């Protein structure tokens, strides 16, 4: 003996079907939005950094090189954790057309300078005097790292502390960007 009559059964089935159809569309209908950052695949926003050694560097000057852009702060513990890996990788890549740049954000200049002395970082490190670069790059915390290919397109963004293996993987992907582009075009 059934508790529900036929009309009610059909109604329940229709509702279940509609809910499943909506869930299916929501989960699989717009897969393009699954990205670590909306900037990936686009031109890296231009910036000019004031380096701690007094010099200045602009992204446009680095065209033709693979760029690792690391956002950090002296009070950030995971930044200290990744510092040795960054230093080692920089030594490995510095003569291979790869540039490492450290961008200090939400920090005090004195604390940042002593951090660099303590944790190394022979590569250029600086701050944005306008304090806009962190928003221009959609930074939500530190450490966060962008990998930019030789043509100036962002290939990846990595949130969290880096290791040498992670750096190798993403630097090679960024360096291979132009090779991929020329092979597909």
């Amino acid at each position, binding site marked *: 003996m059934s508790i529900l009559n036929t009309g009610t059964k059909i109604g329940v089935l229709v*509702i279940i079907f509609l809910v499943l159809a*909506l869930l299916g569309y*929501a989960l699989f209908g717009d897969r393009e939005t699954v990205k670590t950052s*909306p900037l990936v695949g686009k031109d890296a926003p231009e910036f000019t950094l004031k380096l701690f050694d007094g010099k200045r560097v602009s992204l446009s000057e680095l065209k033709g090189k693979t760029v690792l852009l690391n956002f950090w702060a002296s009070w950030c513990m995971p930044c200290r954790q990744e510092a040795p890996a960054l230093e080692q990788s920089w030594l490995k890549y510095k003569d291979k057309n790869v540039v490492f740049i450290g961008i200090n954000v939400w920090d005090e200049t004195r604390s940042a300078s002593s951090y660099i002395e303590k944790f190394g970082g022979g590569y250029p490190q600086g701050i944005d005097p306008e*304090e*806009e670069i*962190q*928003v221009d790059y*959609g930074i*939500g915390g530190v450490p966060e790292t962008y990998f930019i290919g030789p043509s100036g397109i962002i290939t990846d963004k990595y949130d969290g502390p880096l290791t040498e293996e992670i750096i190798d993987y993403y630097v090679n992907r960024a360096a291979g960007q132009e090779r991929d582009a020329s092979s597909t075009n």
Partner: protein
Amino acid sequence: MPTIKNRKIAAAILTLLFLIFHQGISAAESLDDRVNEIAHLLMCPVCQGQSVAESNSNLAQDMRQIIRKQLEEGKSKEEVITYFVNRYGETILASPPPKGVNWLLWVLPGLAIIFGGLGIGIYLYKSQSGKGSGDSGKRPENRAADSDYMLKIDEELKRHES
């Protein structure tokens, strides 16, 4: 001794100064309001449920500064919002647009109201029509059992009264 003409000139200068000063304040307030309006439409990416207008985090302060700068440069509200969406994604919007998973948020409450209303309507209709027809929907054997039961109750009541 001040003449009437001099007084008129002084009054005109004072009025002019007041208007200039007042205009300046109004313009500043208007920019603040516009910054605040846009900041309320954006969620602070590093905060728990706070908008850029409500948060005091470093990032929210930077974002408010950028909103102000872009408005001063003559950018529209939509252009400023697009700038942030292009960098942080649509999750930065306080009211996500009806697209992808967000679509469910907009559609499900409406569907719940429609189907819930239909369900309640059907239930009420059935219970009303059930009352009108009395016990006509029952099977004959059930009706006979009911009447036997009622007879027994009547007998018990009579016995109790006597």
